[in-house]
């Protein structure tokens, strides 16, 4: 497989340089764009396997760029956000971004996210019938969840919640998305439902619910199912 192409859309030269340098040292093929317009030109020239998009771009709101991108294809998008951009970060994820990194971040975190996203994107286009993560295995068709090979009994709500996370393992699913999917569009503000059911689910699945191995928290953003 040839080196994956990564488009880094970031207007701060310092960050753009360090991100591109570490991506190429890790065997990827990065290109840099400092505006949305430049990014569109680069994409028109050659599609990318992964986009890394800063939320504070000078010419266009990163969120609307991501929404437009999602209208065309499913190229994975990693969002870079500063502390003051919490709300935009969640909007970006709701708009279809796959994951985020809060600045400041280290190279280790960056490469881990980038590799995981490329791996997921490169996997079979159709999700396999059975999902296996660590000691968990999940049969998508029958919605049967097994831990160490033993069936875990889930209530219909818990099963729906797990199914929503298992649809895209590794991807951050926002509170809003989970509530809409499991409880319905009019319940998207009832965050405490989600807290309580996630608590139930964790006691059934996790060895120590306070330090989860599978059902991971993205504080203030949402949850994700570990994919390795």
């Amino acid at each position, binding site marked *: 497989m040839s080196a994956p192409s990564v488009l880094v859309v970031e207007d701060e030269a310092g960050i753009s340089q360090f991100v591109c340098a570490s991506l190429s040292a890790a065997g990827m093929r990065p290109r840099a764009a400092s505006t949305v317009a430049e990014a569109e030109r680069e994409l028109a020239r050659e599609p990318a396997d992964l986009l890394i998009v800063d939320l504070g771009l000078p010419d266009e709101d990163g969120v609307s760029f991501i929404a437009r991108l999602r209208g065309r294809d499913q190229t994975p998008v990693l969002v870079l956000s500063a*502390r*003051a951009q*919490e709300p935009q970060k969640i909007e970006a994820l709701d708009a279809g971004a796959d994951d985020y990194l809060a600045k*400041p971040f*280290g190279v280790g975190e960056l490469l881990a996210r980038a590799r995981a996203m490329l791996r997921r994107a490169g996997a079979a286009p159709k999700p396999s019938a059975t999902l296996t993560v660590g000691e968990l295995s999940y049969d998508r068709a029958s919605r049967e969840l097994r831990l160490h090979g033993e069936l875990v009994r889930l209530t219909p709500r818990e099963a729906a919640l797990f199914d929503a996370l298992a649809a895209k393992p590794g991807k951050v699913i926002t509170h809003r998305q989970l509530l809409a999917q499991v*409880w319905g569009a009019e*319940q998207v503000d*009832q*965050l*405490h*439902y*989600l*807290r*309580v*059911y*996630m*608590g139930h689910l964790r*006691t059934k699945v996790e060895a120590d*619910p*306070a*330090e*989860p191995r599978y059902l991971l*928290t993205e*504080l*203030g953003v949402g949850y994700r199912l570990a994919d390795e």
Partner: protein
Amino acid sequence: MDVAKFFDGKPALAWVAGLVAPAAATAASLALDDRLSLAGLSMVYMVAVAAASAALPRAQAAASALLSVTALNVGFVPPRGSLSVDEGEYWWILAAMLGLSLGLGAVMASLRAKRAEAETARARASELHRLGEAMAGADGPDAMARAAAAFLSKATGRPCAIHLRENGALSVFAASDSESFNERAAAWAIENGRPVGAGTLNWPELSVWCAPFSRARGIGAAQVKLADDDKPAASEAEHWAALVRQIGLTLERERAGAAAAQAEQSAKAEAARNTLLASLSHDLRTPLAGIVGSASALRSQGADMPEQQRARLLDNLEGEARDLSLMADNILQIARLSQPQTQLATQWESIEDVLGAAVARMRRRWPDASIRLAVPHGLPPVKVEAGLLAQAIANLVDNAARHGGEPPQVAVQAGRARDGVFVAVRDHGRGLPEGDPAELFARWRRGESSRAGGSGLGLAICQLAAEAHGGRVSARNCEPGAEFRIDLPASEGEEQTA
């Protein structure tokens, strides 16, 4: 006596009563004629006259007295049946009776007038008092002015407005917006410190009555709208003026109080800013010195260094930079939480998620430290701002890792408290410094033996964050080490889940 009030405004009825008194006395005297002398009969008439004086207005009482004396003269003074009088003694009786009757009437009338005056004064005093209460119930100068206008309208029975002058602009407050008022009259009254309009010496032809709050300090005036031929009596206008003075005093007190509170708040904010700047210049320099030093050492001598030393310098570089990042977050939060009435973006969160995020962050920062996390199952969700609370707890863990022994051991624990949940962070270090534990949270105070820098802002953030959530922080020594604890109240409206 309420009989006197009964005849108020009913002069015809009073005239009739004035006739009835001598008639009744004459009837009684006819019946008692055989048994009483003339002196006794005159006493019967005196009773009637006294009753009329007590009950009737002055004119009717006087007429009743004259009629009684005439009836006694005609009916019973010899020769009976005529106005003429036989003996000098009878003249004396009639004269004394007439004098007494008229005198009694005059005394009674003046007593009644005094009592009415006293009653008016009492009613006006209580009105002043109620005005004070009505204004005290309102919040802020505008609402107070509106309440005062409404009160004045009720007290005067006419549409009223309060005019306030602030920074040269005049604003009007009235009980109802439909009335329009004479702003020029109000402006004149405020400017000149004198009342204006009907019933005053200035422009008495205007159909308003307008008086300033005070002679000198031109902050406002009150206006009473009058009908075309309406004009307050002197005593009424005096009472209105007293009400207006009271309104002025109350508004002025409110303004002075608000100004003092604002001055105090800005002084506090100023002091906080100064302490923050002083603390920053120190706290920022320490990690920056480490970063510049490590980076320049690696650049100029890195090639000659043993691998291990290079790795240590790189560790320093990253650690100090992460400290700076934590400090930047802390400074932002201090600035935000020091604002009066900061709004938190609270959400339903599970305490284990918040603790998990804080601990994960600190495990990355302190890879050598042992940070244990214990959260019992089934804690209720709490309504908090997750990022802020996680930051506060990360600061406690950071603090514990710095002071927590070698290598640091930190235990993070959550649980149910009497009326909410608590989070406790315990280390295995040398315990708290001497002195009051509450002092530790005083902003930007630094512990004496801090390891590898670290910002004194951390504990201050914890305190501000806990208080912003309606909770509190505390610190105590335990064997070994120290424990810092955040108590959060149970969130209201904890709803049942679907």
